[in-house]
């Protein structure tokens, strides 16, 4: 079964992964470079007798997700950077009300209308709370078409396990590029569902009425709710940090990158090894929770760290927090939809060596 490979675009793999994971409802709005997602879902979801609605705005789409999540359904929306900005209000409410869902950002260049090229400029927005209030969102960064497929399932499961929205932070390149994917690979994580019966709305038949809300006006009650959320976020930090490590054991120099930049950086590391240079690679897979401990540990054993991102330097701040001065941290970046070559990263690493 595992050899049954299909050539697929990242955006389509995401749809197939979400559908296979039992996504009940999709709500979206057109924006490049994620248009394949609503287009594909509009056909498949309807054929499967599931819910598809093209919303009148990104704001409505995220609030339709809110409604679906309120009644315990597996719901998702997708968009690209400017549209994700519009969803931030809804994300804050979803986090406050502890509603599970999947939000996909196929990032493009910014700020403003920017361009439609792949970018990683929304790292801060995704990981530091783009909306108002003290909240956290689990953020997963796929670096292949295969991971676009797999992360949909992982995201739904994490979101239900912790009753918290999960974002897949990808980009226009991974969304648009094609790779062979084996969608029936039995090594995939199994599809499971956490019960939503204990909290969702569906009419009060046989139980006391429930409400879902984020307004806590009585003195001290919101503070208590904030600490309740913090305890949950602490648990996520403890349990859910994911990263990939490659040739770090004997490395003198390590490059840290996520998403499409990681794909290119990994290739640069491979080439440096061929030249006998001891380079290594760390790829944060969860951008929140961030692998601070792993990076801290590695920074004690290497001479230098390079961070490669398609922006002006965002994740590098988290890397510096993790390193905490134990070794120098340099940055290489391309804002505005600019893309690295592996040679460029290779040369930068070689110059640091």
């Amino acid at each position: 079964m595992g050899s049954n490979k299909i050539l697929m675009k990242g955006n389509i793999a995401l749809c197939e992964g979400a559908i296979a994971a039992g996504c009940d409802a999709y709500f979206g709005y057109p924006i490049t470079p994620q248009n394949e997602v609503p287009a594909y879902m509009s056909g498949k979801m309807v054929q499967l007798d599931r819910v598809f609605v093209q919303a009148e705005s990104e704001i409505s789409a995220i609030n339709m997700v809110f409604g679906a999540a309120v009644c315990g359904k597996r719901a998702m929306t997708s968009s690209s950077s400017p549209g994700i900005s519009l969803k931030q209000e809804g994300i804050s409410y979803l986090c406050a009300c502890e509603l599970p869902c999947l939000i996909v950002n196929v990032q493009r260049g910014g700020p403003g209308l920017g361009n439609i090229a792949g970018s990683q400029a929304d790292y801060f927005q995704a990981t530091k709370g783009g909306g108002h209030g003290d909240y956290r969102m689990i953020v997963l960064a796929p670096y292949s078409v295969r991971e676009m497929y797999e992360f949909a399932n992982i995201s739904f499961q994490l979101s239900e396990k912790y009753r918290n929205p999960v974002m897949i932070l990808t980009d226009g390149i991974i969304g648009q590029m094609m790779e062979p994917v084996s969608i029936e690979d039995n090594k995939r994580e199994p599809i499971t569902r956490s019960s939503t019966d204990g909290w969702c709305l569906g009419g009060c038949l046989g139980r006391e009425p429930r409400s879902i809300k984020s307004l806590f006006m009585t003195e001290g009650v919101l503070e208590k709710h904030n600490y309740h959320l913090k305890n949950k976020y602490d648990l996520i930090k403890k349990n859910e940090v994911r990263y990939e490590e490659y040739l770090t054991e004997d490395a003198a120099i390590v490059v840290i990158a996520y998403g499409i930049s990681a794909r290119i950086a990994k290739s640069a590391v491979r080439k440096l090894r061929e030249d006998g240079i001891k380079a290594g690679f760390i790829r944060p897979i969860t951008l929140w929770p961030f692998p601070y401990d792993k990076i801290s540990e590695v920074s004690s054993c290497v001479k230098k760290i390079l961070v490669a991102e398609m922006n002006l330097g965002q994740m590098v701040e988290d890397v510096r927090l993790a390193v905490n001065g134990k070794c120098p941290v340099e940055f290489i970046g391309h804002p505005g939809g600019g893309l690295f070559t592996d040679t460029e990263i290779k040369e930068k690493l070689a110059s640091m060596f």
Partner: protein
Amino acid sequence: MKKIYFKTESLKNTIFSYCPGCGHGIIHRLVAESIDELNIRETTIGIAPVGCAVFAYDYWNFDVTEAPHGRPPAVATGIKRCCPDKIVFTYQGDGDLAAIGTAEIVHAANRGENITVFFINNANYGMTGGQMAPTTVLGQKTTTTPFGRNSSRDGYPLKICELLSSLEGVCYLERVSVTSPKNVLAAKRAIKKAFQNQILKKGFSLVEILSQCPTDWGKTPMDSIKWIDEVLSKTFPLGVYKECAKK
């Protein structure tokens, strides 16, 4: 002795936090009575707005969710599409529905979502202290129209029933008030019908209710009622604005 008035099951045994003379208490009661008469309490999901009725879940004795300001029709769409067997309604004020949530109400109506909407029009933002609403009438003084609403600076009152009546997806639109026993009974009939339409899968129904706001209008409860009958209902005439053909 025959008991002719009692607390209806869909209202919790709590005290409303609404101001004296406010219309919300009457309208909450009419919504709750209608739900109980139709025997749908245990399958109903209500959506509370941001505004004076934000605490509606403290008063209604059935499932209620909050929604961000203006977004109840989108939240209702998500719920109803996923759970078509539930009865889903939104309860929204004029700031929520006719200002920040205009896109959401127009498109939910235009899609013909099989939901019920109660639109409480009291011609100002009650919760935040009486600012101009889209439904503030010309000449009306509010905290942000201290010289009275001036059409050249502030535009005109937005007439939601008239606006939505042109949309093909809409089944039923009626504007009512709760200023007299006669009007309260008419409002009750409209509210109940808007639920019945949903039960019969007839599509989008909205009842606009002109509601008194004595505190922010700076009027007594009785003068507020008089002002609705003599002024507000001249800009917003009561009546049925759309009714889909009977099946």
